C-alpha cells in the first residue's frame, strides 16, 4: 500500500465562495452564539496572534479590525467532494477523512503514471491549478501520511521499515488524536510521537485509552487500516469530435444515435435511468448550442431517448457548422420500471402514455401538456387552474349550481341582448381580501342564435334594461 494524503489546511477560508480581501484580517468562526471560537484566520490575522481554537473575544481583543465570517460546513464538504472528484483520476481508492483531508491509494496506479516522481509532479500541477492550499505527503499507511501532511513535510516514504524513524520526530499535535488526549500528553511533557512510542504499552493504554492506542498502531502499520471508500457521483459525459463541420440535421442524426446508444448502455449497466440530459453542439468559433432534454419520469430505453433527442435537435437552428457533439447528464436517478400486466388488458395499445407524452412534449414544448383541477373558490375565473399532469389535486366538493363547459379566457361584453333568461340570478360575491373583489349576479341566458351562455351583470344593476351583460362562458 502506498497512501497519498492531501491535506487542505485553509479549506474553511477557501471554500467560502465570495472573495475575501487579503489585505485585511479575517477569520472564520464557529461554535454557539455565546462561545464563538476561531476556526481559521488569514495570514494578517495570524501575524497579530489570532490562532485557531481561540475564543472570538480574545481574537477581537488582539485584533480589533478582525472581520468575521461564520463557518460554512456545507460549502467545505462540497469543495472537498469536488477535490475528491479530481483525485479520483489517480486512484480508485479515494477516501475523505475529517473536514479537510483526502487519502488516495496510489500503489496500484504508479505503473500507469510512470512511477512516483511523475505522478507527484502531475498531482502538484493539479494542486496549483485548482488554487487550494494543499500539503501532500505519501507513506505506507494513510494515518502516517496524514501526520506528515499535517506537519507540512512533503515526504514520500516507500517502505514500512523506515516509518517508525520518520514518525519519531513528528509532533503529537499532528497525530490527529483527540485534542483532549493531545492536551493531556502535553501536560505529561510529551512532545513528539517518538516520546509516545517509547512508553510501555499497557501504561499508555491506561492513560489514553484503547482507541487512541489503536490509532497509533495503525499509524505504524501494526494494525490494518479500514477507510471508507469515496464513490464518485453518478454522471455521464461523452463527446464526439468531427474533423469537419456538419451543417445539416440529417448528418447529425448518425453520431447522435451513437452517443445515445452508448449512453443507454451505460445506464443499463448501472441499472439507472435519466431524467434530464443535455446535448451540446460544439462550434468552431461560436459558443456551443445546448439542448436541454427533460423527461417526465426516468427512462433508459435507447429508442425512446433517441427519438426525443432527435425531435429536440430538429427544432434547433444550426447557427454554425457543428464540429463536436456531446451528451452530458449530471443526475442519474434510479429507474422505476413501469409495471405491466402479464395479461395486458389493452392489447391494442401501441405506445404507452409516458412515451406518447414525451413525444408530444418534445415537439410542442415542455409546458404543452397540462392537467386541469378545481380550486375551492367561488369566483369563476379562480375556481380552476392548470396543474402538472402527475400533481396531487386538492379535493374540492362539486358544485350543484349549473356551470358552463367553456370558460372564456377573459369575460367579454355580450353583443346584442339575450332573448331569454333561463336561470338566475346567482350572486357571487367574494375576494375582498385579495384585491380580486367580485360582486356579480350570474344568469344562464339564451342568445338570439340559440346559444346558451353564462353571463353576469355587476351587482346592484337590474339585468336586461340598461345594464351591460358580460359573457363569461358557453354551455357547450
Amino acid at each position, binding site marked *: 500500500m502506498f497512501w497519498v494524503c492531501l491535506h487542505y489546511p485553509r479549506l474553511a477560508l477557501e471554500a467560502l465562495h465570495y472573495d475575501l480581501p487579503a489585505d485585511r484580517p479575517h477569520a472564520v468562526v464557529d461554535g454557539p452564539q455565546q462561545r464563538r471560537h476561531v476556526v481559521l484566520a488569514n495570514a494578517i490575522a495570524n501575524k497579530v496572534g489570532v490562532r485557531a481554537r481561540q475564543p472570538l473575544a480574545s481574537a477581537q481583543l488582539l485584533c480589533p479590525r478582525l472581520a468575521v465570517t461564520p463557518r460554512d460546513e456545507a460549502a467545505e464538504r462540497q469543495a472537498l467532494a469536488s477535490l475528491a472528484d479530481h483525485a479520483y483520476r489517480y486512484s480508485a481508492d479515494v477516501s475523505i477523512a475529517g473536514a479537510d483531508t483526502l487519502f488516495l491509494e496510489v500503489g496500484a496506479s504508479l505503473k500507469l503514471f510512470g512511477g512516483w516522481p511523475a505522478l507527484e509532479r502531475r498531482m502538484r500541477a493539479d494542486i496549483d491549478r485548482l488554487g487550494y492550499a494543499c500539503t501532500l505527503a505519501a507513506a505506507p499507511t494513510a494515518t502516517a501520511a496524514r501526520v506528515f501532511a499535517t506537519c507540512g513535510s512533503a515526504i514520500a516514504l516507500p517502505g514500512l521499515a523506515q516509518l517508525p524513524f520518520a514518525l519519531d520526530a513528528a509532533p503529537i499535535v499532528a497525530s490527529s488524536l483527540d485534542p483532549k488526549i493531545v492536551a493531556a500528553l502535553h501536560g505529561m511533557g510529551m512532545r513528539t510521537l517518538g516520546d509516545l512510542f517509547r512508553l510501555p504499552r499497557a501504561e499508555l493504554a491506561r492513560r489514553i485509552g484503547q482507541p487512541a492506542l489503536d490509532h497509533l498502531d495503525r499509524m505504524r502499520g501494526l494494525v490494518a487500516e479500514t477507510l471508507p471508500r469515496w464513490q464518485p457521483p453518478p454522471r455521464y459525459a461523452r463527446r464526439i469530435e468531427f474533423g469537419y463541420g456538419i451543417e445539416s440535421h440529417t448528418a447529425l442524426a448518425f453520431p447522435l444515435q451513437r452517443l445515445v446508444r452508448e449512453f443507454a448502455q451505460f445506464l443499463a449497466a448501472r441499472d439507472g435511468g435519466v431524467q434530464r440530459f443535455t446535448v451540446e453542439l460544439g462550434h468552431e468559433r461560436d459558443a456551443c448550442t445546448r439542448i436541454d432534454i427533460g423527461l417526465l419520469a426516468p427512462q433508459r430505453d435507447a429508442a425512446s431517448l433517441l427519438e426525443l433527442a432527435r425531435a429536440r435537435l430538429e427544432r434547433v437552428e444550426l447557427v454554425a457548422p457543428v464540429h463536436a457533439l456531446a451528451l452530458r447528464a449530471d443526475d442519474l436517478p434510479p429507474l422505476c420500471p413501469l409495471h405491466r400486466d402479464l395479461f395486458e388488458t389493452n392489447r391494442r395499445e401501441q405506445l404507452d402514455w409516458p412515451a406518447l407524452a414525451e413525444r408530444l412534449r418534445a415537439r410542442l414544448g415542455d409546458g404543452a401538456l397540462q*392537467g386541469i383541477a378545481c380550486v375551492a373558490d367561488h369566483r*369563476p375565473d379562480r375556481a380552476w387552474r392548470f396543474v402538472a399532469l402527475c400533481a396531487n389535486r386538492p379535493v374540492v366538493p362539486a358544485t350543484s349550481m349549473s356551470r358552463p363547459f367553456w370558460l372564456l379566457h377573459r369575460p367579454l361584453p355580450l353583443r346584442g341582448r339575450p332573448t331569454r333568461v333561463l336561470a338566475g340570478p346567482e350572486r357571487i360575491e367574494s375576494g375582498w381580501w385579495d384585491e380580486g373583489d367580485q360582486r356579480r349576479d350570474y344568469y344562464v341566458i339564451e342568445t338570439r*342564435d340559440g346559444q346558451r351562455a353564462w353571463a353576469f351583470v355587476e351587482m346592484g344593476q337590474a339585468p336586461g334594461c340598461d345594464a351591460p351583460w358580460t359573457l363569461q362562458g358557453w354551455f357547450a
Partner: protein
Amino acid sequence: MFTTNLSEPVSNTGDYPLFAPTVVAAAPRTATIASARRDETALADVLRHPGIWRRGSTKAPRSDTLSTGLADLDALLPGGGWPRGALIEILLAEDGLGECSLLLPALATLTQARKRVVLVAPPYIPYAPALAAAGVDLTQLVHIDATASDTHWTAEQCLRAGCCGAVLNWLPRSDYRQLRRLQLAAETGGTFGFVFRPLSAAHEASPAALRLRLEPGETQPRLEILKCRGRFGEPSHALGLRA
C-alpha cells in the same frame, strides 16, 4: 388453374375480351358437390365477419360502442352508441349549443374507467367545476396546447397511440386527406376521435364514421345524423337535444 370458357366466341378483331368470364377447369362430377359445400361454408365464414352486415338482417351488426348517455340518440346509432376506433364529426353552427355536453356522459364513463381523455387545443378553457360536476375524473383529463400547425400532428399521435380513451379535436380547417389520416389513426389505436368542425364543412366529403350536425332549433338545438356507417333508412334524422 383458370381458362377462358371455350363456348364463348372470341371476337375476331383480336381484341382482348373486356369481360372474359372465367370458370374453374372442369372437375370430376363427384368432387363438385363437396367443393360447392366448401364454398358455402367459406361464404358463411366471410359473412360472419363483424365488419359485414347484410341489408336483409334485422339486427344491427355487432360493433364496439360506448353509450352516448342519451337514450334517443343510442336508439338511432347502430350498436347503440359512439363507435369505438373511429372518427366522429360534430358540425356546429355556433359555440354553446350543448355540443360538448353531448359527450360528457361518455367522457365520464371513460375517465372513471381510468382511460385518458385528451383535449387538443380547445378554443376556450374547459371549465373544471362543470366537468367535475358531470362526473369526469379530472386526473384523467389532459389539456394540450398546440399551435394551429401542430394540431393535426398532435391529434394523430394521440389517436394512433392507443393509450388514450378519447381525443377531442377542434379543427376549423382541415381537408379530406387530413381527416382520413385521423380516421386511420383512430382505427389503429382503437380510440374515440371526436372532431368539432364548423357547419360550413357539412357539404364536404368526410371519411368520418359518424357525422352529426348541431343547429339551433325553434326551442332547442336540433341534432341531425348526416352520415352513419352501418345505418340505412332515412338519410338524416333530427332529434331535440335539450329537454
